[in-house]
């Protein structure tokens, strides 16, 4: 860490450091930020921007950038503060890290921070006629300001950007998303293959897609804002409703983050149960993604096969947690209740059945000549692009990036388990599909080992640590990543150390993997056909509420 500090200090003299927290914190003034970002990427190889968190500190607004070096796994974070609260402006780094494009739009939407040099500064989640920026602490939430509008949005085609002219003055430029003569069709928000309420505006040339404009926010529920008015344990509930196909994993992540902040030791057995639930969730999610991918390509029967086996996993959740979805099982310090006595037997049974049925899936779909023709070589995403766009999870690994958080930054008990990180190098839809299928086998492998371990620990036993009734975090901020079903899920929490009984988060940010995945839709779908758009988005496999939060 000291080493990094020295190197960054050489790159930017104005930077100040704080090595107290878990990661090195660098604070730079906005004027030097862009130059430092370029240097960080080119000289210190911080090639992946993993999170961009906008924060309102009262007097000032600012952004915290988390970035990692994919080769060494080092993580640092940089804090940049906008000088003027009324007209906050920061320099855009979307030309340095491609993923910053949508991330900065999100920060603009939430905080009104204008990113100078960003090519397309539209709102991302909210309607373009929305009044105010909701995550600012001075936001006026009265319903009169923003009633339910039942008319269509106007001026959808227009975008704007702020650029510095030669005198250093920031000027606004208005542009158009599509040219007037383009044939634009609207895919979504209500469309069977967008897997929810995502909307693409697709410019077509015959059947060929020329440009995809992603319009998001149709399921934006303002989770981050709502978390600021709840106590820490209450916020756990929302994690399950973002990526509902990674409900356990997301909840686990927030629990880990809060436990890290509290310095709480979780019983080994509880951690083991959490881990097993995570892997079951991953299995269930990959089965769903198999089903959806096949159904989107028209192989309806395969969808039913995938769903048939998911029911086994749902049964396990049902018996132990009391619900099929949104289980609310992990909690700060452990899990809320002990597992069902048959838990281990059920898991073993499910593993056996799914492993056996995997062969059937491959026979039915993977080997099919039409499926192969439609997936091989379609929707290419190179390793460099995957890193640049911060594509993690199965989609990133299909492009050859070693991005499994379970391996790169082991959390929970993953370092005790013997499993492989499935990595492929093709980067096409087929590779993404196959990575998922192979990961299911790895999950089964982990689950079997975990069953043995749980039997050693005892089928019934300690499942939760002693946790104080009132959860109060010291002032500070923490970031925790886990490997969710669709990629690295990160949680940023900031506490102001409020000593009052019901402490609320000062800021909570969820860095969802799907948010980054949506960034490559345009890149991968360009110059492919409409049918490929469906295949590619299905193979990238995102869950819309996870994007919109």
């Amino acid at each position: 860490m000291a080493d990094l500090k020295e190197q960054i200090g050489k790159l930017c003299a104005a930077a100040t450091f704080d090595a107290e927290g878990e990661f090195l914190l660098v604070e730079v003034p906005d004027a030097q930020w862009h130059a430092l970002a370029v240097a960080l990427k080119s000289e210190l190889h911080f090639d992946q921007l993993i999170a961009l968190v906008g924060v309102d500190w009262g007097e000032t607004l600012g952004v915290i950038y988390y970035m990692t070096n994919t080769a060494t796994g080092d993580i640092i974070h940089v804090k940049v503060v906008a000088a003027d609260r009324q007209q906050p402006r920061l320099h855009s780094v979307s030309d340095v890290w491609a993923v910053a494009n949508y991330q900065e739009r999100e920060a603009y939407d939430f905080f009104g921070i204008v990113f100078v040099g960003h090519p397309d500064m539209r709102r991302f989640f909210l309607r373009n006629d929305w009044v105010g920026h909701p995550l600012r602490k001075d936001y006026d939430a009265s319903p009169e300001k923003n009633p339910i509008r039942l008319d269509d949005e106007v001026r959808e085609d227009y975008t704007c950007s702020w650029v510095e002219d030669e005198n250093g003055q920031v000027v606004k430029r208005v542009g158009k998303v599509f040219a007037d003569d383009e044939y634009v069709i609207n895919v979504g928000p209500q469309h069977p293959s967008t897997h929810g309420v995502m909307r693409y505006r697709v410019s077509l040339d015959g059947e060929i897609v020329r440009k995809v404009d992603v319009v998001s926010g149709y399921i934006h529920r303002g989770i981050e804002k709502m978390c600021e008015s709840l106590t820490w344990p209450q916020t756990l509930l929302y994690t399950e409703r973002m990526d509902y196909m990674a409900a356990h994993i997301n909840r686990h992540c927030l629990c880990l983050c809060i436990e890290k902040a509290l310095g709480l030791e979780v019983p080994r057995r509880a951690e083991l149960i959490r881990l097993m639930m995570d892997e079951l969730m991953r299995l269930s999610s990959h089965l769903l993604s198999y089903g959806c991918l096949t159904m989107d390509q028209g192989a309806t029967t395969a969808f039913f096969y995938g769903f048939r086996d998911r029911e086994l996993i749902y049964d396990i959740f049902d018996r132990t947690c009391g619900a099929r979805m949104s289980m609310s099982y992990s909690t700060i310090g452990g899990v809320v209740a002990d597992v069902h006595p048959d838990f281990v037997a059920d898991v073993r049974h499910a593993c056996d059945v799914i492993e056996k049925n995997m062969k059937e899936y491959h026979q039915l779909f993977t080997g099919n000549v039409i499926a192969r023709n439609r997936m091989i070589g379609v929707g290419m995403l190179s390793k460099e692009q995957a890193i640049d766009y911060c594509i993690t999870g199965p989609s990133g690994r299909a492009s050859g990036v070693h991005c499994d958080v379970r391996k790169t930054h082991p959390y929970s008990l993953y370092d005790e388990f013997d499993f492989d990180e499935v990595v492929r190098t093709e980067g096409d839809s087929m590779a993404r599909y196959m990575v998922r299928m192979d990961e299911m086998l790895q999950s089964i492998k982990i689950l079997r080992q975990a069953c043995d371990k749980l039997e050693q620990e005892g089928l019934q036993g300690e499942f939760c640590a002693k946790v104080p009734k009132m959860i109060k975090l010291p002032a500070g901020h923490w970031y925790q990543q886990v490997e969710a079903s669709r990629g690295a899920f990160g949680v940023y929490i900031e506490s102001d150390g409020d000593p009052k009984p019901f402490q609320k988060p000062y800021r909570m940010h969820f860095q969802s993997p799907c948010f980054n995945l949506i960034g490559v839709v345009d890149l991968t779908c360009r110059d492919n056909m409409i049918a490929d758009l469906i295949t590619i988005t299905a193979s990238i496999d995102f869950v819309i509420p996870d994007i919109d939060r």
Partner: protein
Amino acid sequence: MFDLSSVTSWLDEWLNGVMPSWLATTTECVLVAVFLLLAYSVLAMIYIMYERWVCGWIQCRRGPLRVGPAGSLQIFADVFKILTKEIITLWSTDKFLFFLAPFLVVTASVLTFACLPWGKGFQIIDFNIGVFFIIAVSSIGVLGILLAGWSSNSKYTLIGAMRSGAQMISYELSVGISILTVVCLAGTMSITGLVEAQSDCWFLFKGHLPAVIAFIIYIIAANAENNRGPFDLPEAEHELTAGYHTEYSGIHYGLFYLAEYLNLFVVSGIASLLFLGGWMPLHIPGLDGFNAVMDFIPGTLWFLGKAFFMTFIFMWIRWSFPRVRIDQMLALEWRYLMPIGLVNLVVMAIVVTQNWYFGAN
């Protein structure tokens, strides 16, 4: 074998006896039309249920079973409901063409349906270019689909209609060529003639290799003709929501739905007519006892049985294959099916001229 033509000619004589000939002809036409439409709708309903049960079976489900005994009344509920559902009129569309389109599609399928031989003497029109007529009228359907897509004034329907146009016109060729191969073997275009020619042995076996190739080409092309998976691009539920009929509601949509299933019967019927001997029982040369037993089963049952069997194959394909992409679909036709079909036609011609087929004199 029982010949139904004796009944129909007796009816014709009797009618001509009791009324003037023009009235007799009109009455016969009306009777035929009523019978045809009844058979058409009943069969379409049976087919819809058949599909729902078969797909349930393939997908490890039960399928409809709550409405009536074992779900048998499900289709009636669907029909009554769809008949009384609101028909939405769209603003800024060509209303005449919009309303015309579903009827064109249904007309095309009724006309093809009318040519199918149900049994000996049990068909509506039988003339010397019967097969040719089937090919001709079945291609009216594409016009209806194109009109539906265009007149809805929506981008999705337009893409669906254009795909459909490209697809149906391309695959028409392969269907035509494979039918021609069989005609070449039979030496006649008359439907009765085609069936009669299979009395000793079905064409699929008689024509051995070229006939089998033609059969496979026919199955692929007919699937595409029918807009059924894996060639359901014009509808392509997951790409174009509902393709060319996205904007149709109520009975207009019902007509498309009906025509889709009836077309399925028609292509299965034609397959059984051309390759599996139509209403001819299964005859194996040399086994006279077996042949005699087979003769006891009525021809209509044979025909229906074969058609249902063919349909089962079509359904099996539909529910297990993913959808092809438009360029792959066209490449399959123009690069593979058509050239193979043409070569196969030449092979068949050689086989026929050299008397290399089974049962050749």
